[in-house]
């Protein structure tokens, strides 16, 4: 029979999970999904999957890493599901910011981008602005951009996970970059002005 004194290597204790890892997983999920309900949902799915397959878990010290591994999968699943009906939507011209940015010759319209801030800015500050801008992007563009830039997923990986073609991915990413640069630049400028005026 089992030698119980040797259990220490792989005991998991789901009862403590929420307190120990809840915030951590939630922040991770929220930063990727930018939606508190969605973030809570994937954290819950992660915990439930962890309970069902706790025997997979191999080492005590790695419990958090194990759960984050599950969470990453759940995030990608969630993204795929919420983009399922938007697979081709990002090809729509309505989602293309180019017309706002370029003239008919394909050159920048005047004053499209202000100069970015000179000094070192906290990522956290930029992130707040970017998050606001991401909300105005079609989900299909915002999500691939986040998976690429934040989650560090390779292009082919994203294509396979979301079932989209490389060219579709490329178009989405590019449009996201253009729109974000435009939006972040404008907002940043506005905020700077507001700060300046306040001073």
């Amino acid at each position: 029979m089992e030698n119980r004194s040797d259990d220490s290597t792989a005991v998991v204790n789901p009862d403590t999970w929420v307190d120990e890892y809840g915030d951590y997983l939630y922040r991770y999920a929220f930063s990727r999904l930018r939606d508190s309900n969605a973030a809570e949902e994937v954290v819950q799915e992660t915990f439930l999957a962890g309970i069902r397959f706790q025997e997979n878990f191999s080492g005590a010290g790695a419990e958090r890493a194990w759960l984050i591994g599950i969470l990453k999968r759940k995030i990608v699943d969630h993204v795929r599901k919420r983009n399922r009906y938007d697979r081709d939507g990002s090809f729509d011209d309505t989602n293309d910011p180019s017309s706002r940015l370029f003239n008919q010759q394909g050159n920048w319209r005047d004053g499209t981008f202000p100069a970015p801030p000179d000094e070192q800015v906290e990522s956290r500050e930029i992130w707040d602005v970017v998050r606001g801008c991401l909300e105005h992007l079609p989900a299909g563009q915002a999500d691939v951009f986040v998976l690429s830039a934040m989650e560090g997923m390779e292009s082919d990986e994203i294509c396979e996970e979301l079932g989209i073609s490389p060219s579709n991915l490329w178009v989405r990413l590019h449009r996201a970059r253009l729109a974000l640069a435009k939006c972040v630049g404008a907002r940043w400028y506005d905020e700077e002005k507001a700060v300046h005026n306040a001073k």
Partner: protein
Amino acid sequence: MQNDKTTSELISRSFSGAVTAEQKQQIEEEIAANEQSRNFAALSRLIHDSLSDIGERTRDGDESVAAGLSQAARSRLKSSIRQESARLNNLGATMVGDTTNKPAMMSRPAALEEPEDRTLASRFVLTRKIGKGGLGTVWLAKDEKLQRSVALKEMNPEAAEFPRAWERFQREAEITGQLEHPNVVPLYQFGMDRNTGQPFYAMRFVGKKTLVDAIEAYHDRKEAGEDVTMDLHHLLTAFIGVCQAIAYAHSRGVIHRDLKPENVALDNFGQVIVLDWGLAKVTDDFESDGALSGVLSDHSSAGKTMAGEVIGTPLYMAPEQAAGRLDDIDPRTDVYGLGAILFAMLTGAAPHQNSSMDNGSSVPIPDLLKNIAEQPTPMVREYRSDIPADLAHICEKAMQFKAHSRYQSALDVAEAVQQWMAGRSERRQKYANSRSEGRELRAAMLSAIRDLERNARFMSSLPPIQGIVNAVSDRDGGDDISVWRERLAVIYKGLLKTNSDFSAVSYASADGTSYKELIRLERQASDSSNVRSIPASRLASGDLTFCMQKALEGNPDEVYVALSSECPPPGEARKVGRITAAVPVFDEVTEEVFGFVMIEACLEQLIEAQIRGRFRSINQLYVLDNDCRILMQIDNTGTRVRQNDGVAMSDLSPCWSKVVPHLKGSGEFIDEQDHAFYATRVDLVPGRYSLALAMCLAEKPQH
């Protein structure tokens, strides 16, 4: 032409794709020259870096990035964890062992191969290896806790190095565990070996016998000429079980994708178990309550592990799978797989076996896959010709190249096979009936012919026969020939009156080359009740026919029976429809052959008299001559069909050619394959093939 738009694309690409040194240079030049492009690049860089930084910080647990869980969310999560734990504890040791006693362990006796020192006492003791695949090894093991044998699949150490293998192994266990069906192997426990760190799962031990063994046994027995009716029945019953398991899996959103006889286990009690769900795909769109979607992160991992790869066994693979068109894989891919299993059952060979070999050497896998993806699907009948046509049709429909032409569900396949089996037993019964009816008819015809012979013999032994011999020979003391003729006519008339199928009786003298009728009574063609004696002036004479010659060559009382078509009078066209029985007459004084007595019977009437009220199960009855030309055709209402008279049977039915050798050989053809035909030979003279009866159960005598 370079403009700002293309520059922006290059800048964009520099973040997520490789740019060449030349392009880099180009970007730098543009940035230096164009403020807007410079600002776009700088903003993009800023955004990208901040996201990447936030990504890293959340990974590291930086709490400043965002707020944590709300109190409400926290309690919601805790409650769902408690519920799930409680639910699993109630389920007992299925997917998860009890938490106080884990991880589940296995050990193997030290003497076994791979002699690592696995000394820990544990729940599972490995007994012997049952099989090994690329991903895992299956052992027969003993569950020490419950004292039962289990099959235990352990991930191979070499596979365990690859995260994909891990994922696939776990998926296999998850999927198997979620499919609760009598025809899916029940999973007892998923766990990890503490010593090796490798995952394993325990499932019911279903024995080593698979469909492969059953198929081989069936074909061995078939080759040996044994009765394999029940073997086929068992195989098809097992097949229906496989269909049902697959239909169930489909209802749970799972596609097996690797259906082949090796993956179907058969235990000794007739239980059919579908194994090896390691390549299964969980369909993306499937999200009904209680389905697999929640637990399994499928599509992703399927995509991740399998995109561009071809998964499954090529020999049984559907075209869309061989082509690697993962998006096209749906339940109908399994329908093809089911067809492929049926194919193996019927032919003893895998569907793509022929394409896998070229001049004795095996075709490289990529070429084989290309063939499967592009070439027409193999047909069972190309492998074997003795497969029941409608069963072959089921197989071919399931294996249609285009998914939309296949059965649309596994249940449809099961139903088609079930119907075939039910229909077959009905057909078998019907066939057995018509076979015995055919044998009865043959016996009745033979006895009618014996009657004919007996009558011919009797007609040749009457006193007037020798009286006429004497009169013709001008011997003294005899009556005049006309007296004898009159006496004989009375008797012959009586014969024709009592035997309605006899059309004429005659007595003729013969020398070596010609004959001369001395008396002839015949039935009038237009009025069968009218029997008349032919006046002496109208009596026939002429060259001997073949039948007459044969009769004259015989000994006293030896009757020669033949079809009129076998011995047409010289110079006349072949005439059908009569049987003649001729017996030689010897001069009692000289003991030389004098002539012959011949009775002619109408074949049609003879047969109609025999079949009256006798046939229920036959659709069409054909009477054929020894060239297998149709002499008579009678349909199921007893009506004489004349349109095919004289037509060769082989023109009417392409499969007739296989019947002929049987008729010429054993004299009987039994259609074990399709139960469509029965044929038997009727020898007018024993050993000489003159007539055949063919019976057809189907509407038309063809497949």
